[in-house]
């Protein structure tokens, strides 16, 4: 077997056996499964066994005596507040409210409950609102109008393509959620991959194993094998994640429904997700190989790795701005800049899509950066290979790389 492939295989196997890698790879499906499980536990049971809730009211303003059934909520009238309080204490009513005599001029409604709540449950406030509206409008407008006033719009948006046809992707948060989760995971994973690379090279330098390796293979074979080995491990990780996201999404939309059934994957997401993930992995591995080359030990190299490993999070920090201003040229820059590209592309795929030219440029820049980073790393490796002491100054490194 080709020596580069042997190193690739060794590094790949070494990587996928690492505890950190296994945990990061499996944590996604496990957490998602747990999430679905917990939701099932805490969510109310079957909708068919929904109970009606009775709430009381005291009508001091007068005229509020009809429409006492609002969905699952029954409204029970009390003539005095004392009677209502007594009913609340013995549990006849869940809560009660008072419509004061000056309600029409102030709009104030006093609500009394024994529950400690962060906010008024929406079902209750809607029921009270509709009860008041219906009574006030009764006999003045037709019942259909009352209903329409209570629920004035059901906004249905349809996105059209340039040819006027209905677009396949209809937008909305359901479209963003998977790319956003995936982008965050990608960022974490790239950071971990960088640290592993620096750690591995640092260990080999510290143990001098590097000399044995280089008496067998060239620096180019060694670094290419290592970088591609990490890339292969990245591919395994992304496939596990994407497969489990898809399976769990199906599970969630069939069991939980609601928002989950609106989640959809942007077009090309799977293909681009895998391409950017693997390229990102390889780019970060190549950069870290360079850091490993100029560092005397793993501990020496890690702070430098953190510099670009933090840059990877930039698209996530500014994601909320992306949702508000999806057309800013800043996103184009972040899409083409290779370190931020993988995550920016994932986020933009979900929000508004990316023009083809940007994708092509971004991929080309990424591949060129990988080749450049690898070439520089090999060069730095030759120069600083046997430097076991202090890391040289940056000026010296740049001079040395120039002179070769």
């Amino acid at each position, binding site marked *: 077997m080709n*020596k580069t492939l042997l190193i690739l295989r060794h590094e790949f196997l*070494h990587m996928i056996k690492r505890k950190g890698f296994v945990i990061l790879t499996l944590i996604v499906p496990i957490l998602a499964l747990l999430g679905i499980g917990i939701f099932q536990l805490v969510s109310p049971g079957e909708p068919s066994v929904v109970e009606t809730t009775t709430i009381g009211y005291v009508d001091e303003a007068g005229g509020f005596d009809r429409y006492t059934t609002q969905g699952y909520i029954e409204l029970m009238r009390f003539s005095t507040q004392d009677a209502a309080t007594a009913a609340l204490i013995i549990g006849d009513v869940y809560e009660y409210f008072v419509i004061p005599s000056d309600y029409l001029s102030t709009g104030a409604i006093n609500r009394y409950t024994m529950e400690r709540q962060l906010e008024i449950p929406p079902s209750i406030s809607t029921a009270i609102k509709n009860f008041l509206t219906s009574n006030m409008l009764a006999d003045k407008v037709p019942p259909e109008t009352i209903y329409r006033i209570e629920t004035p719009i059901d906004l249905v948006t349809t996105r059209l393509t340039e040819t006027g046809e209905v677009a396949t992707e209809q937008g909305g948060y359901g479209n963003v959620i998977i790319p956003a989760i995936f982008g965050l995971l990608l960022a974490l994973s790239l950071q971990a991959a960088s640290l592993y690379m620096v750690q591995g090279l640092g260990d*080999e330098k510290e143990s*001098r*194993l590097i000399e044995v390796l*280089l008496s*067998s*293979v060239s620096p180019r074979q060694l670094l290419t094998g290592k970088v591609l080995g990490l890339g292969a491990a990245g591919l395994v990780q992304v496939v596990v994640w994407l497969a489990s996201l898809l399976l769990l999404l199906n599970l969630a939309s069939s069991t939980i429904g609601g928002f989950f059934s609106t989640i959809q994957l942007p077009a090309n997401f799977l293909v681009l997700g895998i391409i950017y993930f693997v390229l990102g992995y390889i780019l970060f591995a190549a950069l870290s190989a360079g850091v490993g080359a100029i560092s005397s030990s793993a501990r020496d190299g890690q702070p430098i790795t953190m510099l670009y490993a933090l840059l990877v999070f930039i698209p996530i920090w500014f994601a909320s701005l992306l949702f508000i201003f999806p057309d800013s040229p800043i996103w184009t820059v972040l899409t083409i800049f290779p370190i931020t590209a993988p995550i920016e592309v994932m986020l933009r795929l979900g929000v508004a899509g990316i023009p083809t030219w940007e994708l092509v440029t971004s991929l080309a820049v990424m591949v060129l950066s990988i080749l450049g980073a690898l070439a520089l790393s090999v060069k730095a490796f*030759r120069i600083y290979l*046997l430097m076991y002491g202090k890391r040289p100054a940056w000026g010296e490194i740049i001079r040395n790389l120039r002179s070769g």
Partner: protein
Amino acid sequence: MLAVEVNHVVKSFVDKVAVDDLSFSVAQGEMFGLIGPNGAGKTTTIRMMMDILKPDSGEVTILGEKLNESTKNKLGYLPEERGLYKKLKVMDSIVYLASLKGVDRHSATEKANELLNQTGMSAGKNKKIEELSRGMGQIIQFIVTIVHDPQLLVMDEPFAGLDPVNTELLKGMLADLRKQGKAIILSTHQMNRVEELCDRILMINNGQNVLYGDLGEIKARYRGNALLLDVEGELGEIPGVTGKRVHKGYMELILDGKTIPQQVLTHLINRGMVINRFEVATPSLNEIFLKEVGKKA
């Protein structure tokens, strides 16, 4: 074909010239000693032979070729400071590093088993490297160095840190390899090992050749005009002897420039003296080393 040929090699680092116009050769089937004080340039020379470093000028030829991937497969290198993948098992380490030397898994495993048996290490083959003692780790590293049946072996301080049993084991294995026609380069501070094992030596200091050639010839060259003698009875005056140093159990006679040991022996026999020891004093390599290095310093 020579195993190694180094021609006028120069290598400098930022602050100093590590190897300065060095030339030497090592024949196949030869045990060659590379000696010199710390910082003399031994390791740099070895790294250039292993293609880890490129010389600034000059040429290194290994087994008749400039270093390339196929010659690298015929090299075995034991660096001075050792280490293997700590978390990897002994057998996996040996097989992986052998595969990088172009040996397939099956043959590597077979050969590794054979060497582990030979060194009494087969019980530990499924242990992780980090579970081994330092000496055991060193034996494993030695196995890694020879498992691919290299034609040229370069060993930097191979005996450092080994106990007497393992030292003997290693010496025996090196002797076997040499019998098989491998060229072996030993780089060490332990002059007694070099004297014991090597045919020829290169002594370097400050990156330059100080002494180079057949060990016996070099020692003969440094042979002083002194005799080691143990006789019964009073020695008395002997013509041609200018000085006398008494040691425990023997004395050292310093001859003048014109007298040869044979004349002294004849004189003693003619006097009818009982001689227990008569030896032409040959300096140890250590003494030569100290003398040469001291001279340059």
